[in-house]
């Protein structure tokens, strides 16, 4: 059991949890994730660790409500419990002084980017960040990422904040203006990482991405998370989650992410119907 110390809404449908997990906090390195299980009947989902505090014995998770499990997490209260938090899993990011590192984060991918950007900066890199979202409120962790970066650019699809357009437009301009960085790290929706990879491949800039496949155990046991990297089958949970973005077959990944769409929709609809009923009951009782 893991106690929720803090829970706050940082953007519409984005929650930040600070959870007691002393042993995970102690060992966590940037790039690693945990497997979370809410209840006996729940599913195990991977969540990247946005921050860890070994002194306080806590880890920070940023969760976007997209399906039944993440919506259920949104219902949890401070002081409440999470049944199982397992980790830190996955291979940590290789951090050294590369020179200039561009961190491209999109949507929920900004959360796992935070410890990586901070780690890169600490290692002496010049960190240039580009964060994007559909609209202003969905560009999360702006202050934290600003603190972890030497320069930062924001983009929104609708132009409500920063420059209008996608992160790739900002990245293309950055390369044109400042020349090639030594490394690009891209974390976000699979399609965003694919487009970033296509751009940096052209410029021959080494690029890392962090993949978000479907997992069950998170320890290399089931192979559900497998992806094709450089023609080889690799497991995201143990070989990754970071890979050379130029070698990842994003088309396979994009398809595999859709494997349970009907079931996900069914679970989400049942959850929402159930909650609508409860909300109505609440009105009746009031």
């Amino acid at each position, binding site marked *: 059991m893991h106690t929720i110390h803090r829970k706050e809404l940082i953007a519409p449908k984005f929650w930040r949890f600070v959870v007691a997990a002393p*042993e*995970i906090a102690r*060992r966590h390195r940037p790039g690693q994730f945990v497997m979370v*299980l809410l209840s006996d*009947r*729940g*599913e*195990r989902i991977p969540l990247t660790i946005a921050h860890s505090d070994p002194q306080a014995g806590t880890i920070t998770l940023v969760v976007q409500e997209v399906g*039944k*499990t993440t919506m259920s997490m949104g219902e949890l209260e401070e002081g409440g419990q999470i*049944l*199982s*938090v*397992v*980790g*830190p*899993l996955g291979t940590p990011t290789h951090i050294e002084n590369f020179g200039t590192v561009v961190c491209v984060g999109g949507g929920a991918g900004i959360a796992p980017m935070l410890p990586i950007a901070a780690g890169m900066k600490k290692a002496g890199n010049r960190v240039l960040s580009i964060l994007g979202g559909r609209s202003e409120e969905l560009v999360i962790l702006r202050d934290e990422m600003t603190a972890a970066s030497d320069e930062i650019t924001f983009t929104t699809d609708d132009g409500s904040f920063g420059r209008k357009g996608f992160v790739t437009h900002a990245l293309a301009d950055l390369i044109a203006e400042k020349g090639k960085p030594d490394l690009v790290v891209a974390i976000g929706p699979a399609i965003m990482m694919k487009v970033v990879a296509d751009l940096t491949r052209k410029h021959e800039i080494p690029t890392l991405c962090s993949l978000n496949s479907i997992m*069950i*155990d998170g*320890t*290399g*046991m*089931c*192979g*559900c998370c*497998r*992806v*094709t990297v450089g023609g080889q*089958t690799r497991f995201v949970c*143990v070989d990754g989650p970071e890979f050379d973005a130029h070698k990842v077959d994003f088309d*396979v990944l994009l*398809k*595999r992410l*859709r*494997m*349970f769409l009907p*079931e*996900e929709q*069914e*679970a989400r609809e*049942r959850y929402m119907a159930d909650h609508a009923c409860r909300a109505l009951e609440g009105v009746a009782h009031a």
Partner: protein
Amino acid sequence: MPERIEGLPELTKKERMKIARHAMPEQTPEARVENFAEVALGYTAATAMEEAQRCLQCEKPLCVAGCPVEIDIPAFIDLIRQGDFKGAVAKIKETNTLPAICGRVCPQEDQCEVVCVLEKKFTPVAIGRLERFVADVERDAGTTEMPHCAAPSGHKVAIIGCGPAGLACAADLAKLGHQVTIFEALHKTGGVLVYGIPEFRLPKAIVDFEVENLKRMGVEIRTGYVVGKTATVEELFHEQGYDAVFFGTGAGLPSFLGVPGENYIGVVSANEFLTRVNLMKAYDFPNYDTPVRVGKRVAVVGSGNVAMDCLRCAKRLGAEHVICVYRRTRNESPARKEELERAEEEFIDFRWLSAPLEIYGNDDGFVTGMKIQRMELGEPDASGRRRPVPVAGSEYDIEVDTVIVAIGQSPNPLATRATPGLELNRHGCIVVDEATMMSRSLPGVFAGGDIVTGAATVILAMGAGKVAARGIHDWLGKLERGEVTKPPFTSAPA
């Protein structure tokens, strides 16, 4: 059922030999493919005693030597004949802590029953069914007694993995007075007994019951704890104060086929399929949150016990046509005969001498079919089995919605990789001294079960866990006398 009833009279050997082996009452194939409840229903007391009556009580019983944990089989069977079920289970528990599990999943036909003297002329005594019977009587009566535990030794032992090897090792160490903590990566206890073996072969309530007993003996279990990630073996020794560490981490890494199309959606490892179904209870989606999908036509590649479990689960999940694709013949199939027969009864379509060549998919990435090559048996290979060789021009296609790959598992390297100095063989298995199960390169580190042998059986893992418990006990004595020290771990962990 009472634990003691009036026994049967002792018969002459001749009379005993006239009694036929008693069949196990089972759900009918038609009924059982509609549910996940246990297939075998168990002997009644009367049947069990009648079956016990068949044992010739050999003076030099070969069955005992055939048992990996050397249960005094004639003694416990004679107690059943006498109606003393409580005494019978106590006799088994002298050497086997988990009879309800072993009675169900041990390959008795290769161990105790194959050497039974009745096997030659008649059929062997149903030792496994009797073992299961008395264990169930005890559990149902709710009178399970805790074994006597020695006074606390002051020593702490860490066990990695809560599967059969870890459970057996923990039980014996607890009896010897040592303080045991089991570290389990998953959120549930039991290892392969829970994620791998389906409910219809081994009800999970039985595993839970045995784990609860272990806790009552003082064993601490920490679930959701991945040794190698949450903490290293070095930290277990030097920061958490453990005096010995036992690896019972099993063979959890799935093998894939290496044929084109393997990453299409609907191609899953046996581990993934069984974990969804057994551990996460996906057969009860959406009451449980984890989904599983089989579609109408399912192919399972492989023909071991794991493949049988996959075939039978797929059938129960509603697949209309379930096909077993195996490149050798029924004779070479590594599955237990009983499991093969049950699968055959459950309308599985066995394609012997068939090897998958390629998996087909559609534009959305979903599997649609499989190309199969017919094979024939050639010369014997290194394993002594005749090698399957392709029959030229014999390829044909089948349509499938799901392909389950059940061609074996190898050791999961997560914990071993994070333990510098630990000697592994080329298969990634820990190299140990067989008498003590201690690592040959890292004294104080022990291992047993599939992490040492590669994928094998529950009972062999349990037997290895017991041998290791003795080895650990000796090691702790030496540590106390200052004859040995804990491993220093000179190189930094990964």
